[in-house]
């Protein structure tokens, strides 16, 4: 029931408070900064050295984890001199554990990372440049979707090889649409159609579009419509927050008005929007692509998924992407680095199996294969790749994004007007961005 991305949250029980100073201090005992990376091997074409063991960390705790492990087993069987061992953490634990593990020399060789984390970890020297991998494997923008490919860059250098992308999709309950006299095979694609459909649903007694005040999924919905209205979260240099611009306020108002007009109940709780979709009380839900596999397990439910309708002036959808990175080691082992590159290249080529885990493969050749076209639902969201709005590449954006999502929370819960909530959020975000600039010197 909980989306796997939800696990990006730490669960520390009671009693951490007083100990926090102590915990942080212990983490600090690792000391020492990672050494420089080495350019090793021929960028991932093959590896002929002595046998190496590679540690790979990921956060695939859902069904995707099994698919990933099977791929790794296959790789290990095909490569006698490389043995990849997989360690899985919950995403949020993962990002807090990784720095400490790396600085104490216990980190992985390969780390899977979300695109929005790349800049932070690159700026902090945790991961190494991969330009030579891209070059040696002759990977270029043309092999990937441009939006995803560019997201792996930080200061014009490549740090991530994209594996997939996971956008927000438009899920609809076909039974409710039928009940309201709508064609369940023609989900609305424009603002007019969308609002007309909601009106029909309302007539049939259904609040058709539950607006969650939380990041999952209301915040990401707002993120998407904000971009559809032509707005952005930050200026081009990510120096100033811009999510209180006129388009942003209009987009936010449109969403909040859904509640005012009775298309959504007030005070939608975490996951309530999605649970209501499944239980036939909510007709439309903008949710992550990772819900496809969960919905497939609900045999009684008539549902469909389509790209997000175009509410604003242009299509746009929230999206993120899993990337492979190579972690800097205190004592770099050239063999390990070149073996890691072989692995990344191999897995990228085999990402069709990964698509069955419910993600759109980043690699174009895989996306255009007949195998991928057969994955109807996931394939339905592939068009979003062209206009996916990925998070910007700037270090330390985590807390700034929290500020963004919290200002939407206040607007959606009616604590503040959209304008007021976003103005307050921007004022705070600008201070946070300034702190980041001082810290990372960019």
């Amino acid at each position, binding site marked *: 029931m909980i989306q796997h991305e939800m696990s990006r949250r730490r669960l520390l029980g009671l009693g951490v408070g007083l100990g*926090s100073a102590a915990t*942080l201090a212990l983490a600090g005992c690792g000391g020492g900064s990672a050494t420089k990376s080495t350019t090793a091997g021929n960028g991932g074409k093959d590896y002929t050295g002595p046998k190496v063991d590679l540690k790979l960390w990921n956060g695939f705790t859902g069904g995707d984890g099994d698919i990933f492990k099977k791929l790794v087993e296959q790789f290990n069987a095909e490569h006698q001199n490389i043995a990849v061992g997989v360690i899985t953490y919950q995403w949020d634990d993962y990002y807090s554990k990784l720095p400490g593990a790396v600085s104490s020399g216990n980190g992985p060789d390969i780390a899977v990372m979300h695109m929005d984390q790349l800049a932070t970890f690159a700026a902090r*020297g945790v991961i190494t440049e991969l330009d030579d991998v891209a070059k040696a494997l002759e990977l270029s923008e043309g092999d990937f979707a441009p939006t995803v490919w560019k997201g792996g860059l930080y200061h014009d250098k490549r740090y991530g090889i994209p594996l997939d992308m996971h956008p927000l999709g438009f899920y609809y309950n076909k039974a409710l649409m039928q009940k309201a006299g709508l064609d369940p095979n023609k989900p609305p694609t424009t603002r007019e159609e969308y609002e007309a459909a909601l009106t029909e649903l309302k007539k049939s007694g259904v609040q058709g579009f539950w607006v969650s005040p939380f990041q999952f999924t209301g915040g990401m919905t707002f993120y998407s419509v904000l971009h559809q209205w032509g707005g952005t979260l930050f200026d081009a240099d990510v120096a100033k927050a811009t999510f209180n611009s006129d388009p942003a306020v209009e987009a936010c108002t449109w969403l909040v008005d859904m509640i005012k007009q009775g298309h959504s109940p007030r005070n939608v709780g975490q996951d309530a929007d999605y649970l209501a979709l499944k239980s036939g009380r909510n007709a439309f839900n903008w949710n992550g692509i990772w819900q496809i596999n969960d919905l497939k397990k609900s045999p009684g439910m008539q549902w469909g998924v389509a790209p997000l309708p175009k509410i604003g002036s242009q299509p746009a959808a929230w999206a993120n992407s899993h990337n492979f990175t190579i972690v800097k080691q205190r004592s770099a082992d050239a063999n390990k680095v070149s073996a890691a590159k072989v692995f990344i290249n191999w897995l990228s080529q085999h990402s069709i199996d990964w698509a069955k885990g419910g993600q759109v493969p980043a690699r174009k050749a895989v996306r255009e294969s007949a195998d991928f076209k057969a994955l109807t639902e996931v394939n339905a969201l592939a068009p979003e790749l062209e206009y996916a709005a990925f998070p910007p590449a700037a270090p330390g954006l985590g807390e700034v994004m929290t500020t963004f999502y919290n200002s939407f929370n206040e607007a959606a819960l009616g604590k503040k007007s959209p304008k007021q909530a976003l103005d307050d959020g921007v004022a705070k975000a600008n201070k946070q961005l300034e702190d980041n600039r001082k810290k990372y010197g960019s």
Partner: protein
Amino acid sequence: MADVIEAGAARADAPPPAGRTRRRRGPTERGHRATPYLFLAPYLVLFLVFGLAPILFGVWISLHQWDLQLPNRPFVGLGNYGDLFSSDSAIYADWWSSVRATAIFTVLSVPLLVVVPLGLALLLNRAFPGRTFFRAAFFAPYVLGVAVIGLLWRFLLDANLGLVNRLLGMVGLPSDTPWVTDVPWVWVSLVGVTVWWTCGFNAVIYLAGLQDIPAELYEAARVDGANGWDRFRHVTLPGLRPVLLFVLTTTILASANVFGQSFLITQGAPGEQTRTVVWRIVDEGLRDYDAGRAAAMSVLFALMLAVVSIVNFRLFRYRED
């Protein structure tokens, strides 16, 4: 009742606690002067390595702009502390809103967590059929992890889909209370869930304390004509004073450390109003990797709690005099 009398009798026969009547050690007595220290040494080592050293290191970190991964960790003196007190800094409003959230939760939850378990313990201390079952039943929620109770109650308390609102609606009460998304309801939810979850623990401690009160005292009071309330006031409460002090102190500290409940049930909503101090420290240190600022928050928060605990002890000592 048998065990109560037994416990009381054992207590009465026991020698007075050490410290009150300390005998001077003569050379004829066995044991070297260093013996007690040798026995204490293992714990002392643990305390130094895992207690004192990290605390001191934490204070040291708090004087720096400290990131595990960045090569430069400039010394900033009291700068991190200054940020917490300067309204210009990005963290100022967040920090004090977290302190406020934690204070509200503590002030609301501690009285309940001190009084409700006491009443429960008094009831469970009586002899009645099924006593063991009820003792287990009230303690049971405490066995569950915060993740379990957090998710459970988040779904039960959901404004639109939750069982709680549905039941309220069935008996004719408002069925749209935003238990987990709006003030003041969020506080009712967080405090209520916490009391439900942890009151069994305090009740067990009270129970142990109650069984430590000599039964003769009750008998003597009864002979003197004391009624139930008098016996509670003049025998039970004084007898529980050390237990009360313990329960009060640990409950204040536990409540001030609240994190899991608001993290899971309200997720900080509305806005950041239920984001607690510990949550803020974890975010600052482990998500934003600003260990210096997180350490400064920890130190400041520890000082606040130390002051509260000292006041607490003073009050109880005053009453003893």
